[in-house]
């Protein structure tokens, strides 16, 4: 089913492929329905988090940051954010937008976007 057939207030989930597409403990930028999303994989636990791709400070690509303890440090100027809530840690940036993720039984990363957000440009 394509995203286009989804009611505007519904949610679309995207299958980002198996978790092994992201190296353990690192992030990866995904291009989902025309928007960039950063997806992070914790080392050891295989938890995943998804946030907006670019740092609110000066648009550093957060997926290139260093991850640990549920936090990411932006590669450009080292601002730190909580991955689960998006909250800035010790800096004055805005919160990151976060997205719901899930690991399927066959280790696939599922990302949930609201249809309105996911289907950019359709309205």
């Amino acid at each position, binding site marked *: 089913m394509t995203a286009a057939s989804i009611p505007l207030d519904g949610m679309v989930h995207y*299958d980002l492929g198996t978790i092994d597409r992201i190296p353990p403990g690192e992030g990866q930028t995904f291009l989902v329905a025309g928007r960039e999303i950063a997806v992070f994989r914790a080392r050891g636990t295989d938890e995943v988090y998804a946030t907006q791709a670019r740092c609110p400070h000066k648009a550093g690509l957060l997926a290139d940051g260093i991850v640990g303890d549920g936090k990411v440090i932006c*590669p450009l100027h080292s601002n730190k954010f909580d991955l689960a809530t998006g909250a800035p840690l010790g800096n004055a940036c805005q919160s990151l937008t976060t997205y719901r993720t899930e690991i399927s039984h066959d280790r696939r990363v599922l990302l949930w976007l609201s249809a309105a957000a996911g289907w950019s440009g359709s309205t």
Partner: protein
Amino acid sequence: MMQAESELFAGPDRQRLVVIGNGMVGARFVEELIARGGNDRYDIVMFGDEPTGNYNRILLSGILAGSHDVEDTYINPLEWYEDNGITLHAGVRVTAVDRDAKLVRGDMGIIEPYDVLVFATGSSPFVPPLKGLSSHGTEMKEGLFAFRTLDDCDRMIGFVPKATRAAVIGGGLLGLEAARGLLERGLEVHVVHLRSHLMEMQLDAPAGHLLKATLEGMGVRVHLDKQTSEVLGEHRVEGLVFADGTTLPCEMVVVSAGIRPNVSLALDCGLMVERGIVVTDELRCPGDASVFAIGECAQHRGQLYGLVAPLWEQAKVLADRLAGRIPDASYTGSRVSTKLKVMGIDLAVMGDQDPADASDEVVTYSEPARGIYKKLIVRDGRLGGAILLGDASAAPVLLQAFDRGTELPDNRAELLFQLAAAEGVTGIADMPSSAQICNCNGVSKGALVAAVEAGHCTLKSLCDATRAGMGCGACKAQVQQVLELAAGDRMQTDPSVHYYVPGVPLNKADLVTAVRERGLRSVSSVFAALAGGHEDPGSKAGLASLLRTIWGKEYDDERDARFINDRVHANVQKDGTYSVIPRIFGGVTTAEELRRIADVAQKYGVPMVKITGGQRIDLVGVRKEQLPEMWRELGMPSGHAYTKSFRTCKTCLGSEFCRYGVGDSTTLGVQIERRYQGLETPAKLKLATAGCPRNCSEATTKDVGAVAIEGGKWEVYVGGAAGAHVRKGDVLVVVDSHEAVLTYMGRFMQYYREQAKYLERTYDFVPRMGIETLRSILVDDSEGLCARLDEAIDAAVDAYFDPWQEAVAPVHPSQFADALEPVGAGSAS
């Protein structure tokens, strides 16, 4: 009066509170108001013409001096305003207040109605009307600065590299702090002061002269009784002219000639303004029941205050009043006493600096050689004022006596000496629990003790919990003493200062031992074994660097511990692209190599091809995905321009071609770079070799350098720098062959790898160890280490491989992916 109060809070309706000024006092007031439930009464709107949330202006001196990061200064991030339902117009200047319509107008057409209005507009630097301030009558001349905002501070720091000599106009507290900052940043600094002694607002003449001598000892040049009349230079500052006809050439001028309260808005809307906006004890503007003023813009009982402690007191009183907690709260003025933080010199002043009349008793003690001066003004057996310069250890006790007006002991010397001698834990122990420790935030000893009881047993958590030490920071040592006293065994020292990385509680030596003994070969195993399983992202790269140095080939390389540059072997740029700098050994290349670089640049549409300051070529603006193919086609090894490692060895022409050359610096440089390329080090290492003391390759200001001198000899320099810091290196040894140069350089590099802190450049490492010590260890072999160091560096050199080989064998399929696409989509509600 009661009439006005009840009007103000009439009915259940919420009121609109507008605050003009989001500085240290405006924001503090709103914070205090919210803490008192003010959100239930008011919709709060703030205007601040600075673009950020609220920051600690006091720490700007620290930022200028390089001892604080911008991050340290933020008090309330933008999010705080949002979370507390405050509408903040950041970066918006209020242009008019209409008191009849009860409206505030800001830039960009923003209009906010108010029921209650608070002025907290602070002050602006006063710039005396000198000739030549502006270029072409409009803009401030380039190189001319005031010192008030974060933005001023940024611009000054940005300008420092363009200057060698700076003049600070004004020898008051702020001017001296500016002078210190610029001195720390390596400039020659002149302080030009109109009066006959420094800081005349706080100090008497003898203290002022002593301070001058101390400052001069630090390298600041002080000119007293000097009136500046003109700023020289067409477009940018070139110097100053003084009223006595003398001049001072300089490229940078900081004007710090006092401050003027920002009163024009208040004046324009008809409020009573003298030097500041006049307020009553209710902090209200006379004649308008709904307008208040606090902070540096306010004039209370004829007095203007320029320090945060009294101003924060005003913020609190107004919050009490407007929140309805203490509806009749009033402000009756503050006794100004403070510990100042001038250039790392201890200084505490309170009350009067000179006797008021003949009945005042003056007690002084001075010890010029140590820069110590103490003076007490005793009035009716009580403390009327004090100056403590160079040794402020008696300050807590004196402040206490001053604040409470207690009777002084008959033996005055006791005050200056015995109590001072009983400084430290005893001094603090003897103080009553009401004694104020933090003068900026008004935190008492009792409040600190209570916080310790509540479990705040490190300095950081204690400060966070009580706000002590979060203003100017001058009281940190005393907060630490209270902590020691109150926490006893429970005290945890503030750990991270001694740690190699913040997330693993061990210094470098202990960490290395633990890693070796337990055979910890990966970063995650270090977190598991030594940090309670806590994976601190800020510690990963430092640990990776250390483990690689310890284990060499046996290091278990977890890629997520690397900074992005070290995952993709290129330097990340502001837009997320990368740069490719292939290695060109010693800056010597061939036509064939150049052709290949040119071909690759053309084929991949590289946006910029640049000759670097490191004698090689940079292909800039490359997408991550393009990296591996480009490396393959270049067929050259990585130049490691992106990582903490050996970078380059620049060379000059040397004896082969140059008419002055006495040593073959080109061959030597190529040999050095071939041997040590890519060597992992605590911070980057940049080298150079020069064929004679003319030093065209700048070898004396490199981390490691070799300069040929007459007689077939080479001087080996270490610890030089010409980047953010400029330092001439020290000669480690003079030798007579290329081989010996390579040996000593390698030995030094290995010792640096083992001993330096993470990210400590050699320009800090060498002075920290001392060149004598280094010579004795690395040349005279005083500790019997040399053979082992030589072996270790050989092993590290052997372990080297070119990371660009990952072009053919990536460590992970997504290693160079810019962005991945999903493999499918579905829906749910």
